Structures are given as structure tokens and as C-alpha cells.
């Protein structure tokens, strides 16, 4: 199969069940909003080593935010609701409450406690920083905590919604020129950035150190994805085309299968838009044994064209 002249491998992306929450963060202006976004989503690439995978979903205009200030929707993902709760409370407490002028609101207000969704106590826990001077206000049935801080108050919603989500949707960009392959990767990431319900949590949305499960070393849960490493083509069972000299992976986490599938298709189409930048597009999987969500590239691209 070809997409704008680029070969699409008959591969599938293997993705996993995760839990996710969306925070709406507001600030006085874009400068402090940028600070809040970068701090709260930092060290949020992979749960292999981070407490959560995190990224900016989209910017919000003042008209879209609860307090009428500039805002952002930020998504956080973790393996289960408990780990997500710990990560979010820590990140809000250390990265957002500390950031000048911020306020934090629930971005999944319809999520209730049940099998597929839950509520994460946020202000309910962090309010104790107020040392008895905190106040709460209930509006529209939702409680907000006002914690006195040195620039006034930090406003936090009492709890935020969390839902079952998916992490690890992906595709691999194989090229023979690093700059051109990176250009394709950036086009893909920029396109995905405009879509709702998804993030690309790695640096600049791109992974160069793709991983496989396990290692020859004890205690290592993940190690380099040797089948995609161009310097190892003569030593391992490579999946790369012979001319490939670099591979970049775009990892996509999303709130639904449809969101990830749509992001993969649009990301692939954007990556392939410039003739000659790429040799092939493939996807990463673990033989289908670990993740329950399989995104087959041929099926996705075929459905997109029909």
C-alpha cells in the first residue's frame, strides 16, 4: 500500500489500556500559562520511567475557560486510576499550585464513579496546604477550593474526572535522511496537535529511542527496539527497508480508539505530504500479546480513503 508515494507496511500498532484525566489550567496571561504547561507536563514521556504521560491537548481562549482567562487543556495518562491520581495530585501540587496565577479546573465533568470512569480528589487533598485558611465555594454543584498563596489564591476544583483511555498508538517514520525524516515527523506532530482527545507525549511529539519489551539484562523491563535501529541491520532481524538510515516514532495517547485511529491517519497523511521525505511508514507492536488495542495501518488507511 502506498500513501502519497510512501510505502505503508502491513504492520499494526499495539496499544494499551490506560486511565486519563483532562485538566483545564488557566493563568493571568500566556507567559504564565506556558510556564504552567511546560512544568506540569515535564518528565511525562513514558510510564516506563515517569509517573504519568502528559501533554498539551489544546489552548483555550478566555471565552472557553471557566474563569474567563487564557487556558489550556492538558491530558495526563497512567496505567491505572490509582497511579493517575497520585501523579496528578503531585504534579498539580508541585508544578501548578507553585506557578504564579494559575487555577485548575476539571476537564472531564461528565466522568462519574463507575467501572469506566472515576473521580480524582484534587482540591479535596491539596486544600490542606491552606492550613485552615482555605475556603470553598460551590457553584453549579461543583466545589472549588480557594487556597491562600502569596499572590492571592490558588483556585482548585475539588475533584476531576478520569476515564479509561488508551496509550501507545504509534507509527514509525522510516527515511534515509535525518533532516527530511524529522521534517515529516514535525508535520505529523503539528497535525495531531490540532486534534481533540489526543496527545503525543514525547519530546516534540517524537521518539527516537523506541523500545521493545524486555532485555537481555535482568531488571530491565524495556530496551532498545533493535529491529528498527538502522545501525543494527546486519546484526538483528531488521524490519527496515535497505536504504533506511533513521527512524522516528510518533506515539499517540488518546481518550478513545477513534481518537487515536483518526490521529494516526491524519498524522501519516501529513508525514507523507512531502514527496521524498520518507521511505516507509510502519508501526510498533509486541506480537499482539501485550496490548489489547491493535491499529492495523492498512485497515486505517483504507477506511480513511473510503
Amino acid at each position, binding site marked *: 500500500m502506498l500513501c502519497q508515494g510512501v510505502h505503508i507496511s502491513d504492520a499494526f500498532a499495539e496499544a494499551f489500556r490506560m486511565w486519563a484525566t483532562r485538566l483545564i489550567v488557566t493563568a493571568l496571561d500566556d507567559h504564565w500559562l506556558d510556564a504552567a504547561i511546560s512544568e506540569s507536563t515535564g518528565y511525562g514521556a513514558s510510564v516506563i520511567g515517569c509517573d504519568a504521560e502528559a501533554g498539551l491537548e489544546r489552548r483555550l481562549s478566555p471565552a472557553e475557560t471557566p474563569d474567563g482567562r487564557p487556558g489550556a487543556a492538558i491530558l495526563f495518562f497512567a496505567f491505572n486510576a490509582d497511579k493517575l491520581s497520585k501523579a496528578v495530585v503531585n504534579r498539580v501540587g508541585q508544578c501548578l499550585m507553585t506557578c504564579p496565577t494559575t*487555577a485548575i479546573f476539571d476537564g472531564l465533568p461528565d466522568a462519574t464513579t463507575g467501572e469506566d470512569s472515576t473521580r480524582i480528589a484534587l482540591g479535596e487533598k491539596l486544600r490542606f496546604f491552606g492550613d485552615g485558611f482555605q475556603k470553598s465555594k460551590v457553584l453549579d454543584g461543583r466545589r*472549588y477550593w480557594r487556597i491562600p498563596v502569596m499572590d492571592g489564591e490558588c483556585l482548585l476544583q475539588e475533584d476531576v474526572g478520569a476515564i479509561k483511555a488508551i496509550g501507545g498508538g504509534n507509527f514509525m517514520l522510516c527515511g534515509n535522511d535525518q533532516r527530511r525524516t524529522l521534517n515529516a515527523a514535525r508535520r505529523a506532530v503539528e497535525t495531531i496537535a490540532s486534534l481533540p482527545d489526543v496527545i503525543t507525549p514525547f519530546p516534540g511529539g517524537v521518539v527516537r529511542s523506541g523500545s521493545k519489551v524486555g532485555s537481555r539484562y535482568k531488571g530491565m523491563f524495556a530496551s532498545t527496539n533493535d529491529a528498527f535501529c538502522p545501525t543494527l541491520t546486519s546484526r538483528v532481524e531488521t524490519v527496515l527497508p535497505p536504504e533506511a538510515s533513521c527512524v522516528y516514532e510518533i506515539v499517540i495517547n488518546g481518550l478513545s480508539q477513534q481518537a487515536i485511529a483518526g490521529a494516526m491517519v491524519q498524522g501519516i497523511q501529513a508525514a507523507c505530504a512531502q514527496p521524498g521525505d520518507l521511505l516507509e511508514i510502519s508501526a510498533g507492536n509486541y506480537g499482539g500479546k501485550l496490548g489489547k488495542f491493535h491499529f492495523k495501518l492498512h485497515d486505517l488507511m483504507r477506511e480513511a480513503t473510503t
Partner: protein
Amino acid sequence: MNQPHSVAGYTLTLKAGAHWSDASLLLPEKLGSLTPDELRQQLGDYFNVEGTPDDTLTLRGLPALDGIGSRMTRGTLIVHGQAGDDLGASMSGGVIHVHGRAANRVGGPASSDNPKRQGMTGGTIVIHGDAGDYAGLRMRRGIIAITGHAGVSPGYRMIAGTLAIGSGDLNHPGLEMQRGTIISLQRDAKIHTTATFASDGVFNAPAMAIIGLMLSHLQKLGMAITSEMKQGRWRFSSGDRLELGKGEIWQWTH
């Protein structure tokens, strides 16, 4: 004035020459599930009945009855005309809109079967007009929004909740209040408080997210909120220090 509520549900219009004095039956939770025939059977001698079953009830043509919306728990009650004393007394949920004046003790305690003398414990009251004395008396939770003036001692013995007043000076607001928020939306209105309230300073609205959040909410309720308010400066005062001292008065200022 905006009317953000829908006009679904039943509308009861008092018939010419009819007399009705019992507000306790006129609640959406009591009448909203009846069929039109059942409703006409009960009230047709007094009211023209229009509409279909819903959790919204609209009242027209009534005199200023005392106790409208008292002990209301859910639904929406819309009153076109004046309300008497004790509007929404001890209500715990739902929304009341009065398009006209309301008299004393809006959201205060119901006078009977109320040993703790507890005011409203939830819900929202919006008065598209003026209110009498002691609005928010002993209220514990919920919101009262008055687009016009309030009489003396709004928020008297308030336990918590929010009381917003659209215009006019405030005559001894929040006396003996414990917690809660009283908001004056008229710029630089005179606020006559006792020495048991103290200023906590003046803050720019964009720097205090709670101001923007609250103003947006009041705007949705039908209060006239301007961009000058959202970008303006607000004086925060706290009291009453004869009580917990955790109450506050927000005043839009220069």
C-alpha cells in the same frame, strides 16, 4: 433583563377575581409530574393552566405571597410579579427566578418545623429586581442573586453561601456572618459595615480566578456583568469577627 431559563413546563395564571394565598403547593416538585387534566382538576378553579409536565413551573398574576418556593428541593420556579416575605425559605435545591420585587428574608429560615432556624441550604434564587431586608438570613449554602437593591442587613447571620447584590449601597451587610460571600456589583457602592469587618486589600480580577469564575456564574444567572467588572479591581473584606470571621465582602471598586 435576560431570562436565561426555559419556558417549558406548566404556567399557572391566576384567574381574574380569584384569590389564592397558599404558596406551599406551588412548587414544581409537587405539580410538575401531574397531567394537565389532574392539574386543572386541582387548581382549575383558580388558575388558567397551560403547558405540559416538566420540572419548570411558571406563576403569573399572583399577589406578593409569602413563602413562595419555601422548602423547594428541585426544579425551576419562575415568578412573574412580586414575591412576599420568605421567598425560598429553607429551600435545599432548584432555581427560583422572580421577575419583580421580593420582600424580606429571601432565602431565610422557614418559620415552622425548623427548630434550628436554618435558612436555605442549597439551590439558587435570582431576583430580577429589588429585595427587602435581611436577604440571605441564616443561609447555609446556595446562591442568591439580586439584580437591584437589597434592604438592610443583607447576609445577616449568614452561615455560608453566596449573596450577590446588583446595585445600591449596602446597609450593614454580613452582620454576625460566619462564612460565605457577599458581593456588591455596583462600583464603589458605599458599604456601611461595623468595625468587626476589616479590609484584606484590593485585587485585580484577572489575578484572582475566583472572581472571574463567580462573575461568569452570575452572568449565566442573568446578572448584568460587564467586562469592566471582569477586568476591574475588587476590595475584599473579611468578618464578622464577632463570629468565625471567615465571611467576606467583595466590592467592585476603582
